[in-house]
């Protein structure tokens, strides 16, 4: 063992935990090395002084102060309504709840408005178509003649099929709409004369 290895074993020697062989080597080295002897003596004294350091004592009111703090730390048992109040009836929750309600109401209003608007557009378009068809019964395909007399407004909106009946498929601004079937009587007896409808 060199001096460094001897130093590493200071504690083991002091606490008497060295095995027999290591103890022999340690003692032998110490007998022959004055520097290590001196260092070990200082080491032993330092540890001894450490053991003799005065112990700090807690103040007499340590326990009572602790008990007071523990009482404050204990959770207060609240009833259901009190818990509800403390947890949910807070400014944060009130504000959030209000905002959610506002969003829901606005959503419902916009939805309703949209539906009404759509219905009105469909109704207007249908009424207009029906009216025009009523006014101008000839603006349909007539079976037999295969002649089509169109008016600009009805070009894309009237698609008749079948004999003696016309089936109209209405479209509004290019989008397919609910099909409305209007039964119209077509007059075969009156020939279409020139000079306009």
């Amino acid at each position, binding site marked *: 063992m060199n001096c460094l290895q001897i*130093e*590493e074993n*200071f*504690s*083991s020697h002091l606490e008497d935990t060295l095995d027999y062989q290591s103890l022999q080597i340690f003692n032998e080295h110490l007998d022959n090395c004055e520097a290590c002897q001196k*260092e070990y003596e*200082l*080491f032993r*004294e*330092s*540890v001894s*002084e*450490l*053991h003799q*350091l*005065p*112990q*700090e*004592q*807690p*103040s007499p009111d*340590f*326990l009572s*102060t*602790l*008990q007071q*703090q*523990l009482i404050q*730390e204990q959770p207060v048992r609240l009833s259901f309504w009190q818990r509800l109040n403390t947890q949910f009836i807070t400014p944060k929750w009130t504000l959030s709840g209000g905002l959610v309600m506002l969003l829901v109401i606005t959503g419902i209003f916009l939805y309703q408005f949209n539906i009404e608007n759509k219905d009105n557009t469909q109704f207007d378009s249908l009424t207009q178509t029906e009216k025009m068809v009523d006014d101008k019964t000839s603006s349909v395909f007539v079976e037999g003649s295969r002649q089509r007399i169109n008016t600009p407004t009805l070009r894309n909106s009237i698609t008749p099929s079948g004999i003696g009946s016309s089936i109209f498929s209405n479209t509004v601004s290019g989008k397919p709409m609910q099909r409305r079937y209007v039964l119209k009587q077509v007059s075969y007896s009156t020939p279409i004369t020139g000079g306009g409808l």
Partner: protein
Amino acid sequence: MPELDDELMQQFQKGDENAFTLLVRRHQQPLVNFIAKFTGDRDNAEDLAQETFIRMYKAADRYKPGRAQFKTWMYFIAKNLCKNDLRNRSRRDKFRVDNVTSNNNDNGDNEEDIDLIATAPADTALQPEIAIERKELHHTIQNAIAELPEQYRYPLILRDIQGLSYDEIGKILELRSGTTKSRINRARIMLKNKLKPYMETI
């Protein structure tokens, strides 16, 4: 009356508050001493010791008697609190004006001497020189401990001041047995080197 800490903890877990009071009575002194020695601040030590017991009180449900000793658990919590406290304190100290300490040093020695005489133990009152010498030595040792790096300070205090076993220290500091032993030996050598100038003059 149950003797073991574990038994008292089990009683406390069942709702017996007196069991916890008994545990506090039993361990308050070593805990305050450990924190005071580690932080070097006696007044703050009491607050930190109380905080340790409060944390133990709150976390009592999670304590498993077979797994760790009450004492090991207590020192483990205290160690973490000390660590945080020292970290916070070092942050605060960074903002302090340096010349405050230099001004204090001018008159510090005289005040210290007066303090040493005033607080000398009563049993050595007939030998005031010895009393002052002892007090001064303790003061020097305390300063030397405070100067040790944390990783060496903890095991040294736990072993040589608190008297814990290597196994207990290993559990508290989460170190292996070999590491614990070598750190304690290293800490003692560091302390010896710090005290050497003082010890050689005695």
